């Protein structure tokens, strides 16, 4: 059954610098004062939409016996982005935002809410058709970042498993098994043994 996702109209702000996720391969932090809009699924808080200063680091690097392939992704987050997953820890560091907080970011309550709803609608356009019910029961997190082409780059995390997809690349990592799909080549690696081959026409998972 398809779940109903909606943005709460309560605008909050982070009262500390927060690490939304951190592992060997990925780190996502937001600065103190980041505007935060909770996302509800079936009347339960299941995620947030953030706007403020954030930093995303992903080591999209495959280690092979012939050397490392790929490069780290380092991204400053200044646009709205979505997080769905465990909200408990983050909720502890949120407080009600003031009008000044909104003004500092050149938004009113109404414009910010509209923009957040647009982002959620765009995400649901892709994800709602096949992933929402599964996600509701999952322990992992999903992040969606708007990119320059007005599409969404997706980051999915669940334990040691990581999937990051953009227009130009897809990186999948599960412990010592990795796949890196670049415009030129695809690298498969398991326990240090690699298998590079020419890039077939693969769907890179980027939201249209």
């Amino acid at each position: 059954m398809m779940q109903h996702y909606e943005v709460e109209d309560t605008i909050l702000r982070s009262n500390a610098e927060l690490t939304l996720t951190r592992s060997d391969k990925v780190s996502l932090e937001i600065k103190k004062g980041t505007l935060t809009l909770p996302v509800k699924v079936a009347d339960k808080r299941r995620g947030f939409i953030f706007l403020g200063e954030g930093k995303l680091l992903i080591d999209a690097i495959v280690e092979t016996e012939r050397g490392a392939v790929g490069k780290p992704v380092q991204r400053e987050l200044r646009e709205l982005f979505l997080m769905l997953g465990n909200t408990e820890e983050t909720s502890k560091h949120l407080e009600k935002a003031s009008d000044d907080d909104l003004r500092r970011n050149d938004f009113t309550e109404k414009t910010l809410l509209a923009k957040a709803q647009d982002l959620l609608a765009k995400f649901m356009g892709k994800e709602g058709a096949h992933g929402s019910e599964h996600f509701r029961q999952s322990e992992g997190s999903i992040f969606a970042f708007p990119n320059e082409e007005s599409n969404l780059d997706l980051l999915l995390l669940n334990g040691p498993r990581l999937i990051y997809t953009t227009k130009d690349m897809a990186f999948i990592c599960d412990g010592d098994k990795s796949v890196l799909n670049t415009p030129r080549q695809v690298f498969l690696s398991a326990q240090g043994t690699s298998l590079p081959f020419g890039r077939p026409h693969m769907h890179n998972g980027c939201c249209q």
Partner: protein
Amino acid sequence: MSEDLKQEMKKLKEEMASLKDQLRDAGQEGRNKRRGIYIDFGNSVQDYVEDVMQGVAEGVHGELDKSIFIGPRGCRIMRGHGPWREEDENTFDFNEAAKAMSALGHEHRLKVLSSLMTGGKYINELQEGLSEITTSTLSSHLNVLEEAGLVVQEKVRGRYLITMPGRTAYQMARKVTRFLKAGGEE
């Protein structure tokens, strides 16, 4: 057994032998027929085939000339060496190559690459093998290697890893050195 019967038996044996021969010939003919159709195209086709074969032979001979090096210490087969083409030279990025070679051109940077050949390392682990230089000097060497694409640094954990081009470049440096030490005869 009467003499007539013996004669009759002899005749029958000869007939059987003759029939066997005929059968064998017929079988052989059948097999020949199954192998293909023989058509005589005359000398022109034969000449053409001979020309093709000669071309192939010359090509193989030429390739062998390029890939087999016979020196005073014996014979060596050079693998993976394609013909030297001028168009390759036109597209060769000399600037990029110079940058990579320049990154290799320092003893400490070569030592860093050597250390990374066994796996990713943090800067303090690299420093242990290079106690003769300071951490800031090591950092600047790592920056040069990273800029040339021979090394990549993980942004989350901070480890340094040798890249595929880095590994190839280091192996190439070792090979060139060995070659020079052997007086260019390897």
